[in-house]
């Protein structure tokens, strides 16, 4: 079965939301590793 006609816009919406979530997770990971480094030093 083929996806419905608006599948292209739906694909873009999903990819966009996945990219945003991935960017937020990476940013959180960087902040966490930085905080761990400081905590381990003290």
């Amino acid at each position, binding site marked *: 079965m*083929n*996806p419905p006609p608006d*599948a*292209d816009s*739906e*694909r873009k919406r*999903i*990819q966009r*939301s*996945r990219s945003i*979530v991935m960017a937020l997770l990476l940013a959180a990971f960087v902040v*966490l590793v930085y*905080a*761990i480094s*400081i*905590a*381990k030093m*003290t």
Partner: protein
Amino acid sequence: MSQTATIPLPADWRDFFALTKPRVMSLVIFTGLCGLLAAPGAINPVLGFTAILCIALGAGGAAALNQWWEADIDAGMKRTRARPIPAGRMDRSAARDFGVALSVASVLLMGLANGWLAASILAISIFYYAVIYTIWLKPRTPQNIVIGGGAGAFPPMIGWVAVTGDITAMPVLLFAIIFMWTPPHFWALALFVQSDYAKVGIPMMPVVAGETSTRRQILVYALLLLPLSAAPWWIGGTGAIYGVSALALSSLFVALSFRVGLRQRTGPDDTMKPEKQLFGYSVLYLFALFAALVADRWLLVQG
């Protein structure tokens, strides 16, 4: 026909989140946090947060691997057929890769932040759930829940070890309590969703040994749980607040288990109310028991 029209849609981020079994994870996070808070000693808040995060990520990774392996089984059960893979919203290999990535990341991060003993126990717990329980025992033996329940028993031990850096009697007892709690908790559920497990060929205790045997075993485990739950008090690891709470909570657990253990299904119209009550209470029991453990520790520290 355009090329994009034939390519399936990518999975939504919410489906990846659903792979981690967030509801199960809430209990894992709670018991892990309680183990961390009840342990003697202090931990930097950032490192404490990281320990709980890693326990959650590890549990999520193991859950994703579980759903990758059991996609066909999930498709045959009403309770699980809406999950991302059987519902066709996600490719199986994506779930596998996601599960492996989460598992490896959680162990490495915990090793760097909280030490390699805690990280090793986390790695063992992931392997225990994803391989020993999901792949090996669950499809082979009706004792799958008994042995596999060990996977869910690791979080408080990991939280404890993240603080103390060593394994003593207390984290082992916390492990044993959840280990002993798992069979009556899960078999109560299996009694009222029995037909689903039978349909997909999973040898759950009610299917293989029959309802009567399962009910008796629920009662046996509940009776064993009663002294075990109070053992941290008896060895001097906690105060009376925990001890009395444990005895009261476990006594009610035994009382509800008696209702399940000594009855028979009255017929096809049986609403299975005692079994549903026991299952609901078992979740509440674990939350309350570990909350009492933390409250006891905090009141002891505050003098």
